[in-house]
């Protein structure tokens, strides 16, 4: 089985498990929407303020809940499953890639649901060049998928997993958040988004290279 074919099979398996458990669709997405709903409730009744923070809030919620998607229970493989995949000769990097792709697709679905909700709840005005944000969203969700998958693997089996995994993911994903928020702000002002786009691209590339290279050692058992 080729690398990409193996990755596609793993991705399909993860999506099927998610389809059956409905963890992202029925729990994470509604929870994210509630979070988006709670923020205006905690702020003074000030529409211009809400419009101004709409973009940054969108990215913060996407980061926090994208992390939850990456660390979802349904993506945690059991030891027998991992052993079976190893015995079948599935490359560790292909397994990692498949898991990242599944998480990215689920985060992307979340991002798509979140976007119109943000526009409506925050009465936000879309910047004129908003289609340029689509590749930014895709790259950010890919980056989140990579960091989340690595963190899930690193904290597998730990009692402190629930607290430790977000502690590892949040700082590593922060450059994506900063650059994405900067890109949104630049678009609103009519400025170029080249620099934030490059920062996102390099961060995602760096994470992907390290993620793929360290997938093998992380798979090893003693």
């Amino acid at each position, binding site marked *: 089985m080729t690398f990409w074919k193996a990755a596609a099979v793993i991705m399909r398996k993860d999506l099927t498990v998610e389809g059956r458990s409905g963890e992202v669709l029925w729990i994470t997405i509604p929870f994210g929407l509630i979070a988006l709903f709670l923020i205006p409730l905690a702020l003074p009744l000030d529409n211009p303020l809400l419009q101004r923070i709409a973009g940054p809030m969108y990215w913060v919620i996407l980061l926090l809940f994208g992390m939850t998607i990456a660390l979802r229970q349904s993506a945690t493989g059991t030891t027998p499953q991992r052993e079976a995949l190893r015995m079948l000769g599935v490359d560790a990097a292909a397994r990692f890639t498949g898991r990242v792709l599944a998480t990215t697709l689920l985060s992307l679905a979340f991002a798509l649901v979140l976007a119109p909700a943000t526009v409506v709840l925050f009465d936000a005005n879309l910047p004129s060049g908003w289609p340029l944000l689509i590749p930014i969203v895709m790259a950010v969700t890919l980056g989140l998928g990579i960091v989340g998958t690595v963190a899930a693997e*690193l*904290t597998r089996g730990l009692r402190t997993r629930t607290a*430790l995994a977000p*502690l*590892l993911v949040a*700082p*590593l994903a922060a450059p994506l958040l900063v650059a994405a928020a900067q890109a949104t702000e630049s678009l609103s002002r009519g400025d170029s988004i080249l620099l934030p786009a490059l920062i996102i691209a390099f961060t995602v590339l760096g994470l992907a290279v390290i993620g793929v290279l360290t997938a093998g*050692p992380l798979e090893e058992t003693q």
Partner: protein
Amino acid sequence: MKTRYVLSLLALAALGYGFYLSGQHPPDAVQGEYVRIINVHVPASWVAFAAFGGTLLGSLGWLATRRRRFDAFAAASAEVGVFFTALSLLSGMIWGQVTWGIAWDWGDARMASTALMFFIYLGYMGLRRGMPDETERAKRSAVIGVLGFLTVPLSYFSVNLFRSLHQTQSVRPDGWQIESGEIVTSMLINVAAYTLVYLVFVTWRTSQGMVPDHPELGSDLAGDAVVAPSLGGRDE
């Protein structure tokens, strides 16, 4: 062991001399006496970056060779790095409060990225504490040691890449960013002293980290004399 003591004495002497020089240079025309904070802030920041570089090298070394010493070195370097990052953040905040009028400015990319760097290595230490198995701990923390280093260039170059209140690097290829020669000398002596302190801390902590968590037990154990009861001639 003797080298370690010599290194410790040398570091102590350098630190003392650096401290003495910090009080000798004249106050700055704008910053006044607070300019002396540079003698702590810049060396602490330099050591923090170098320490996380050490963690990267140790982590890569462990991944390549699986030798315990690399893991112990990476962990020791991360611990020292976290300490110096905290010192850098704290000294920067004190300086910011008296110079900019604000201890923490969210518009400053250097502050935010340094805090992120601090948190990722706190996570590194948290991960190590949660893993009882030595090999598994070394493996997982090596991955974080490599991944976490991404935040180091981000923090270093943040003053060039993003809008920032923080001035650009004090030492750059195109020259010094500090006008007074005395301040530069004092700062450089402190950089050397802090580097020696880093080496001392890392050497001690690495040797401590080399001690196995669960040492192999010898054959003479309490209770060895107790044997299973004999079943009256029925040898099994």
